[in-house]
């Protein structure tokens, strides 16, 4: 999130799109209610299903799963063509007036941008993005046209690109009623007035698509156009579904980054530390400091062993070899026998992963599997699944019982980037150990093995700076916190924040973003719990928000070009003439050394051009770029019931990797066989793969079984009544040699209605994915049906839109 939960109270209009906030983040409603009470805020829900959030909304627009870009593109068009954008904001804080290379082009027949080329290794396309650049003068300054008339300026490109996204076209694509669309656009665009705040909150209903990153980009662009970034009550707010997902991302639980959102080193491109710094460090913007963060991280990793002579141990970092190592790809490697063993930490892909039926078969190729979890989950017990023959499976499974989060202390970073310490509530039962203990022991034993027996590349393990032991054989969390916070190598003195980090080896810091969260061990910021007495609900002394305890990022934009808050009732920061610096309720998102003019010209300090991007230009620094479109473009989901209305030759995102041949619905015959559009989701009562909640009788009582929501019209056609058992099937099961679909109870509901998609009647059905074959509450696995295709940038699978068939059982 750019903002945080409590900040919702300042919103005038809140759009929940692809995020079922009442259902999956119930506490958010406390602040949405507050905004309603205090300022008559409106909640708008855009979702394929009339969900619990829709039920408590002021306005609701149903859209077909997988058509968010059409909906948001329509909103962008509505804002741009009706002059509803926040003019002073957009002209000064975004790249609206920047000129783009004349070679840049878009092919509206194929639905692709200039630079498209084949990428046989991924069975997809890729872009040569050299034409997606700004025009510059001889000194490298970006050319601008303040009149916005130049046909190559971003404003004109936007107008042209979104010209087709008329309400009529958007209605045909999304299935939403034209009047409802226009009303919702009007409502949200009303926040483009100075002083008004529009908040867009989302979750997996935006990200889990083959064009997920583009969905998110669309949201960011709407918020830039309306001047909703950096202000109280605004923002692009990703709602995290687990208490520490934000923390996990910060710590690089994804393979393409290392901690602190730095790109994982690649073979070739990043052969040396110098190469890495040259390729990855932009000359301007805050990321110009990247070498300090990387070298300090290497010092934290390798301690005394990291010296200038050995590139601070850079060569011990693993390098990516250009092969996809994401979730989908890892299982494909497993299928091909390329992976010998798997350590699965608090994850249950056999329920939560795409094409889960196939994954159970692929796991048979593992020699060993370690599962670290609170319960014996389906992934650890895949060999017990229905249809499995344990006699044929040689995988040796180790289950390490782990303590629950309430049975250990430590920090969790919430959606608002607040790093909050939580204390142990009770002891873990039996042999269960906290994850820190398990990882510490695992590492120490691995190191002993490498030391005694050697190995191909032992140094990353044997030379690792790993000393976390505390009294009584328990790890000492204080040591971990100090390393994350950052310290001076010479004497171990803790650093105030990341501004003091250096690239000469004199400082060490595990994750620069966490700099300052633990700089005073006697009273660390992350353990503070002081409510603010006056202010705008930022609670700066309640825990610590990265970066630098900043609660609203890009907050320079909360003020006009004179430095006065757009909304004087909820001022975030402002320019003090007396003190000649930025002051206010929040930590200013501007380097302290900058002049007022610099801060006004470069309010988006993380980007080299200092401006919010309405056009995602390629200016040579790979990390901050997206690979699939400089302006979001409507693509169908991989399993699509219709052709692409806007771009005749386009189907789904051409850049999305085709992992398996003949995996998704392609022919008309298949569309007839799988005619219904499925979207999967979560319910309040269960959590993720359900491994915890399905073992809790009170929750099973509320939501006892897997069900599928079907509209009344379709149920009538298929002879299905409420509570009937039905079979649901998709191409994935057939491909895996399974003829029979999965079984679920029918929920025949008026909350879903048939939709007219470009003149054709289509039915949307929905299914929660919480059930599996282990635990107290059992049920079939919804993800047996979902496709293993993913977003072009992140490869997150397309769980939210695929085709299926439904029939009555028996």
């Amino acid at each position, binding site marked *: 999130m750019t903002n945080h939960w409590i900040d919702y109270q300042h919103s005038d209009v809140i759009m929940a799109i692809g995020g079922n906030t009442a259902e999956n983040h*119930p*506490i958010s409603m406390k602040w949405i209610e507050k905004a309603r009470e205090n300022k008559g805020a409106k909640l708008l829900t855009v979702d394929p299903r009339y969900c619990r959030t829709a*039920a408590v909304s002021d306005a609701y627009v149903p859209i077909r799963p997988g058509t968010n870009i059409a909906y948001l593109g329509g909103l962008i068009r509505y804002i741009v063509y009706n002059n509803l954008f926040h003019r002073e904001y957009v002209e000064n804080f975004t790249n609206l007036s920047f000129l783009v290379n004349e070679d840049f082009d878009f092919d509206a027949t194929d639905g692709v941008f200039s630079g498209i080329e084949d990428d046989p290794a991924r069975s997809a396309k890729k872009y040569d993005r050299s034409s997606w650049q700004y025009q510059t003068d001889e000194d490298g300054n970006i050319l601008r046209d303040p009149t916005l008339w130049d046909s190559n300026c971003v404003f004109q490109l936007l107008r042209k690109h979104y010209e087709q996204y008329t309400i009529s076209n958007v209605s045909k694509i999304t299935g939403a009623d034209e009047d409802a669309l226009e009303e919702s656009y009007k409502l949200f665009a009303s926040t483009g007035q100075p002083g008004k705040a529009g908040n867009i909150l989302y979750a997996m209903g935006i990200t889990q698509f083959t064009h997920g990153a583009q969905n998110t980009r669309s949201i960011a662009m709407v918020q830039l156009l309306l001047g909703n970034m950096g202000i109280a009550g605004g923002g692009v707010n990703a709602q995290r579904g687990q208490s520490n997902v934000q923390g996990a991302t910060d710590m690089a639980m994804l393979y393409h980054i290392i901690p602190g959102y730095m790109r994982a080193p690649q073979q070739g491109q990043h052969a040396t530390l110098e190469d890495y710094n040259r390729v990855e460090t932009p000359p301007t913007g805050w990321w110009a400091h990247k070498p300090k963060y990387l070298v300090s991280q290497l010092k934290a990793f390798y301690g005394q062993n990291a010296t200038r002579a050995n590139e601070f141990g850079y060569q011990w970092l693993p390098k990516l070899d250009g092969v996809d190592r994401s979730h989908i790809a890892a299982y494909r490697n497993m299928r091909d026998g390329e992976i010998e063993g798997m350590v699965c930490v608090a994850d249950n892909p056999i329920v939560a992963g795409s094409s889960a039926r196939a994954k159970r078969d692929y796991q048979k190729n593992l020699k060993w599997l370690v599962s670290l979890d609170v319960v014996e989950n389906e992934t650890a017990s895949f060999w017990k699944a229905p249809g499995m023959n344990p006699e044929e499976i040689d995988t040796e499974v180790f289950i390490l019982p782990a303590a629950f989060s309430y049975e250990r202390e430590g920090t969790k970073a919430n959606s608002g980037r607040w790093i909050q310490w939580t204390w142990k509530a009770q002891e873990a039962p039996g042999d269960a150990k906290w994850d820190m203990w398990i990882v510490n022991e695992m590492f120490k034993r691995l190191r002993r093995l490498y030391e005694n027996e050697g190995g191909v590349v032992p140094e990353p393990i044997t030379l690792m700076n790993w000393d976390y032991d505390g009294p009584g054989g328990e790890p000492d969390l204080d040591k971990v916190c100090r390393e994350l916070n950052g310290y001076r190598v010479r004497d171990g003195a803790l650093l105030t924040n990341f501004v003091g980090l250096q690239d000469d080896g004199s400082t060490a810091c595990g994750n620069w973003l966490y700099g300052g969260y633990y700089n005073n061990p006697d009273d660390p910021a992350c353990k503070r719990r002081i409510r603010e007495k006056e202010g705008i609900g930022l609670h700066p002394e309640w825990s610590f928000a990265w970066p630098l305890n900043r609660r609203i990022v890009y907050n320079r934009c909360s003020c006009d070009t004179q430095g006065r808050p757009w909304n004087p009732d909820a001022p975030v920061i402002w320019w003090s003439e007396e003190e000649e610096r930025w002051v206010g309720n929040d930590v200013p998102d501007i380097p302290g050394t900058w002049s007022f003019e610099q801060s006004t010209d470069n309010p988006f300090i993380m980007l080299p051009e200092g401006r919010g991007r309405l056009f995602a230009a390629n200016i040579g620094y790979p990390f901050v770029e997206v690979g699939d479109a400089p302006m979001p473009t409507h693509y169908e989901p991989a399993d699509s019931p219709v052709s692409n209305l806007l771009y005749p030759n386009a189907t789904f995102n051409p850049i999305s990797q085709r992992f398996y041949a003949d995996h998704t619905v392609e022919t008309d015959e298949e569309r007839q066989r799988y005619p219904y559009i499925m979207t999967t989701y979560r319910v*309040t*009562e269960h959590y993720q793969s359900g491994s915890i909640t399905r073992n809790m009788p009170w929750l099973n009582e509320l939501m*006892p079984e*897997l069900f599928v929501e079907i509209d009344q019209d379709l149920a009538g056609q298929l002879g299905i009544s409420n509570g009937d058992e039905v079979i649901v099937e998709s191409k994935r099961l057939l491909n895996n040699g399974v003829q029979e679909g999965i079984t679920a109870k029918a929920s025949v509901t008026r909350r879903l209605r048939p939709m007219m998609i470009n003149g054709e009647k289509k039915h949307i059905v929905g299914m929660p994915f919480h059930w599996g074959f282990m635990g107290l509450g059992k049920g079939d696995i919804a993800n047996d049906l979902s496709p293993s295709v993913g977003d072009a940038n992140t490869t997150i699978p397309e769980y939210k839109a695929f085709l299926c068939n439904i029939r009555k059982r028996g």
Partner: protein
Amino acid sequence: MTKSLLIDTSKCMACRGCQVACKQWNQLPAEQTTFTGSYENPPGFTPKTWMKVTFREAEVDGDVAWYFGNLRCMHCSDAACVLVCPAGAISHSDTGSVVIDPEKCIGCNYCVANCTFNVMGFDRQDGVAMKCTLCEDRTSNGLEPACATACPTGAIRYGDRVDLMRDAQQRVRELQAAGNPRARTYGQTELNGTGVMFVLENTPEHYGLVADPYVPLSARAWNVVFKPVRVLAVLGVAFGLWKNWSSTKDIKEGKGT
């Protein structure tokens, strides 16, 4: 009645934290349920289930609506259960809530059968009626009822009845001003006032409530006719139950005839 609960359904998003909190505080075991087509579960009220969130779908002006209600003992001023209880086991507390004294309860089931809202459970094993206590054990110790404490949005509030009545009317005015002419209160006058009051966005039926609740004449008559002979009746019923119990026991122990 001095203390009440106000349930503002316009603020409820059916997270059912209240339903779980009720089970947790009162140590009520889970029911074995099945999915019957609605999110609402369990189906009815039992000694293990004292309150539940209701889910009702409706079509309003051509649009779908989903109403979330909150059913449990309404703590009626005109309480049928109090009137019909032959053992004097059910009474109003000082704050106005309806409480069952399990020591006095003889397990006749009349209260359950006569409950206006059908929200009481009967424990066949122990032969006692059970229901929402408005968390008497919490409120008498300065805490709010468990459901109110759990509610994240303030949809369930506990407090002085006069304050809550004023807030409820104010809220209804707000909802009406925002364009919902159907907004109304419930429980201020119904049955002479119920200890559980509501702000509703549609008619009571959309929330599983009774539109015009009344205590049937039979229950009132029963009370009038019965009262003079209550002591005898209690003894009689108690004797009958003892007979029944001892013969059941005989059967269980194999001494049956």
